[in-house]
């Protein structure tokens, strides 16, 4: 059971969005750049995408979870730490060591990955005004937990060669936690997030089984 009401949570979301404005614009622009780069890669673009993704996790963990959500939920210290860890993991693997190449392809994980990226960058924030969330609480990828998680699942599924499953662990876990938290609040993403997490994780495992264990990036 959550220790706060839907009204209190919605007011917190609205205040967070108001306080960090215009960070939303930067997040949207970076999202558009990321989409462009997965279709038209450039030199260093993979490290750039990983850095953007890592920054999104660290921001969401440190600012949204630890500075805002902790005011009504002590457990947000733990979730914030998980988000920061995930950011560090992506930064180390992708931005630091350059071990991930993000490419939009045509196989099943890629197709699903592109769908999740679209869901995170377009459908999720635009669904705000269509639901009780409204514009003031619209969740934007890069600064809100849900769409950031979906964006990450989608981009990791676009990894060339074997999909780095370790980078999916925290996002997949978070989809379950977020879904369970959203359920009692009757929020629309209560089912979307866990479904995306389970399908992404399954596709990654199935896709990797079809590849030799030492398969490298193409």
């Amino acid at each position, binding site marked *: 059971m*959550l*220790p*706060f*009401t839907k009204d*209190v949570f919605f*007011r*917190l979301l609205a*205040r967070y969005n108001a306080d960090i404005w215009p960070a939303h614009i930067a997040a949207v622009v970076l999202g558009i750049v990321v989409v462009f780069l997965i279709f038209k890669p450039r030199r260093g673009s993979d490290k750039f995408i990983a850095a953007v993704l890592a920054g999104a996790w660290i921001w969401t963990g440190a600012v949204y979870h630890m500075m805002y959500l902790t*005011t*009504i*939920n*002590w457990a947000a210290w733990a979730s914030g730490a998980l988000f920061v860890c995930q950011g560090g993991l992506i930064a180390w693997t992708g931005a630091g060591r350059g071990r991930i190449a993000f490419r939009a392809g045509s196989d099943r994980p890629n197709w699903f990955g592109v769908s999740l990226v679209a869901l995170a960058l377009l459908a999720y924030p635009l669904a705000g005004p269509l639901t009780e969330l409204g514009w003031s609480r619209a969740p934007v990828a890069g600064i809100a937990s849900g769409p950031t998680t979906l964006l990450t699942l989608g981009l990791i599924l676009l990894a060339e060669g074997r999909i780095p499953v370790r980078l999916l662990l925290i996002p997949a876990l978070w989809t379950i936690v977020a879904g369970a938290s959203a359920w009692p609040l009757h929020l629309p993403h209560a089912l979307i997030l866990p479904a995306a997490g389970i399908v992404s994780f399954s596709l990654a495992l199935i896709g990797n089984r079809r590849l030799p264990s030492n398969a490298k990036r193409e």
Partner: protein
Amino acid sequence: MSRRAALGSMGAAAAAVLLDPRPALAAPGPVLEKAIPATGELLPAIGMGSWITFNVGDDTDLREARVEVLRTFFAQGGAVIDSSPMYGSSEEVIGYCLARLENAQTLFSATKVWTPLQWHGVLQMESSQTLWGTERLDLLQIHNLLNWEGHLETLLDWKAQGRVRYIGVTTSHGRRHGDLEKIMAAQPIDFVQFTYNVLDREAEQRLLPLAAERGLAVIINRPFQRGALFDRFADRPLPAWAGECGCANWAQIFLKFIVSHPAVTCAIPATSRVDHMLENMGAARGRLPDADMRAGLIRYIETL
């Protein structure tokens, strides 16, 4: 008195009744009080819980709304406020409210320690005291029996030093009654807290008689089953004895059922609304149902 003056007085009285909702929500008379067996100190039979309802973070508008809820609570004769470090910002918000109230002199502060680590429990209790902003907490309870052996050692020490007046243990949702019973039977505590309401009556079997036998004060949580009782019964007619006991609504029926049990000291309904606080505190006045009325209520709701 002239007819005109008499009519004027009657009109004024009628207007007062129409404009002030409180006379319709509360029976007249003094606040119902019950004694803490350990000391004989009297407490109003209706207190206030803070799970969810006072966890509003640093939202200033919501905090100010809670100030009005607490102002109403004290204006209606309330005293016992129960909270816990588990309840997010509730303790901090209560402290915020108390600092802004001029009518909180009757406060009986009850909070809990909730951590598996005994050393951390000390820090938590010190933090609670700071958050409430009171010189001394009245009651410290071990939340859901978590590491009760360790925390009881600390609480006994604090009580001996005069840092807290009373100590106790809590459960909720009907959990761990067996363990609670053993603690009640053997440990030197002053208070117990558990769930009891018109539908959840397991406590009548062993816990309430044991509390009476051991001279323990009893705080009752979840008196409305977190609102579920209203979902089930709010649109049904009140029982026949409602008027006789000054009950104007189901909230008062549910609360008077609880506090009319001889072993119960106080019930702690939670609310974030002034109108609901008025309804709840209405149960702190007027006659309590007797054993026949209580039995009749159980029979009645079982037919609904």
